């Protein structure tokens, strides 16, 4: 057998991020739990996330309200669960709709090179130069309070990152003799992408995606902060962060809850992705 000692002076330490098997299992368990929460929604606690009880606002956790009540006396647990549906689907959707075209265009730029590459790269540069916020705010303004406008805007600003990363890495991979060999041997482009590119750039993309999921949710919070949000009484983690900010001194446990949910989600994503790299 060839050990690495022959091909290189020393085996490289794993380029991956801290990688521990049990941690990965924990990641998947957490993700499964989050998915369960999102699917089951507020039914899990049997409370209506929109039902108010104004005189019982900002109550600390109790038997009736497991996580307390918000500023309008709504059950926090029910709202967080209801928010999980929107937040997680926003995270997944925006990652998908930004990641897929971004990755495919990145591969196209690296594959064809020349003018295609220059055109796509200039386009991506121009998109980056256009303040992303402008794009999101305008889309949100086209349809105020609409969930889809927010999501589309966020997704539109995120794709460039996937594009840049994929293009940069794919260029290196495509230039390798292994890809040349595969082309000579008659592998179809689709197969070359699957066998050569996906394993090589996949982990990096997943890391971007994990960060991107967090970005999507905090972007909603940031938009809420500049008064662009979804229609009440929608519960979403980012929206809740903005809504609960005014009560951060008297009831800090309120705003901490959606933040904690997001931390858990991102942590779970990172753990289950295992290797984590950024471009």
């Amino acid at each position, binding site marked *: 057998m060839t050990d690495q000692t022959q091909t290189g002076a020393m085996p490289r330490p794993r380029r991956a991020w801290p990688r521990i098997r049990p941690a990965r299992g924990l990641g998947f368990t957490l993700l499964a739990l989050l998915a369960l929460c999102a699917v089951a929604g507020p039914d899990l606690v049997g409370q209506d996330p929109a039902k108010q009880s104004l005189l019982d606002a900002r109550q600390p956790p109790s038997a009736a309200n497991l996580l307390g009540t918000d500023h309008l006396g709504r059950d926090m647990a029910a709202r967080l669960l209801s928010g999980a549906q929107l937040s997680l689907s926003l995270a997944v959707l925006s990652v998908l709709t930004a990641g897929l075209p971004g990755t495919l265009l990145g591969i196209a730029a690296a594959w064809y090179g020349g003018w295609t590459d220059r055109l796509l790269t200039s386009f991506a540069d*121009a998109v980056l130069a256009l303040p*992303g916020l402008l794009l999101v705010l305008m889309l949100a303004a086209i349809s105020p309070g609409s969930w889809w406008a927010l999501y589309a805007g966020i997704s539109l600003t995120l794709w460039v990152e996937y594009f840049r990363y994929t293009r940069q890495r794919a260029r*290196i991979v495509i230039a390798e003799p292994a890809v040349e060999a595969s082309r000579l041997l008659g592998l179809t482009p689709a197969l070359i992408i699957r066998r050569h590119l996906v394993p090589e750039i996949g982990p990096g993309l997943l890391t971007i995606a994990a960060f991107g999921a967090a970005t999507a949710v905090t972007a909603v919070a940031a938009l809420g902060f500049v008064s662009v949000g979804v229609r009440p009484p929608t519960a979403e983690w980012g929206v809740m962060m903005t809504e609960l900010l005014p009560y951060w001194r008297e009831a800090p446990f309120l705003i901490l809850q959606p933040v904690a949910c997001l931390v858990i989600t991102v942590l779970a994503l990172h753990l289950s992705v295992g290797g984590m790299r950024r471009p």
Partner: protein
Amino acid sequence: MTTARPFLTILAQRALQAFIVAFIVGIVSFAMMQALPGDAAYRIAAGRYGYDMMDAAAAEAVRVELGLDRHWIVQLFDWLGALAQFDLGRSLVYGSPVIDEISVQLGYSLLLAAGAVIASLLIAVPVGIAAGLKPGGLVDRVTLAISIFVRAIPAFALGVVLVLAFAVQLKLFPVAGFRGPEHLVLPSLTLGLGLAAVSNRVVRDAVADAMAAEWQLFARTKGLSARLSVLRHVLRNASLPVVTYVGVQMAYLIEGVVIVETVFAWPGIGHALVHAIFARDVAMVQGTALTLGLIYVALNLVIDLACRGIDPRTRSA
């Protein structure tokens, strides 16, 4: 891998990019502003007079004053024609020249952005190096967890917590405003922490890669101490991806700037852009977007030049 580009080529490429960006930004922002629903005259009147004073009569007055009835093509060509003479026009809401508005606010925003980048580097570089020198070690794992946590906290929450700690409790820095350099610290730190949460991982990866490189091992076996090897070889090699990434981060900085400007009552361009969009101040939006786009291009030029400084391969060969 790296292609050598002469200095002038870089300048020419960036100039061309600047031109394209100017054109695209102008057209896109104009088109989107036109596409927005609702009557622009009402929005502008609202932006001008506030809700106590704004009504349909004010909106009609605005419509007549600004000629909003004209066909959009006429309005676009007006703007492009003025732009060709380096005139960004007057703010529809404030009536003052856009260039004046931007020049005041841009200065503050750039100060804030620079403070944020410096703060993020001051945090990310040492932390990233510490984590990257021992990938998988305790420092690495702890900083990863902290990075994730900071990344998941919205900037405004981070901002108020920092204010509470450093301004109210410790009384080290002022809460908000922009009188002196001490006012810059907390907003910079708020933004910088958010940036550092990601960029410390980039530094860490770059350092880990450099530490695993054969040339690093050879630098050691030829007799350099660990410290010298890091200082003379690892840092320089690791700084390349980091500098490139900082360039990318700049593009995302503007979002954070808006929030931080609002929390810290900092007069900045992000804040102005948001207001201009809400108030349908097309001239301000176009002018601001254009300025930000050009700054992005200029920053890329700086990054290019920095990479040239670090990487001699791009100069000779």
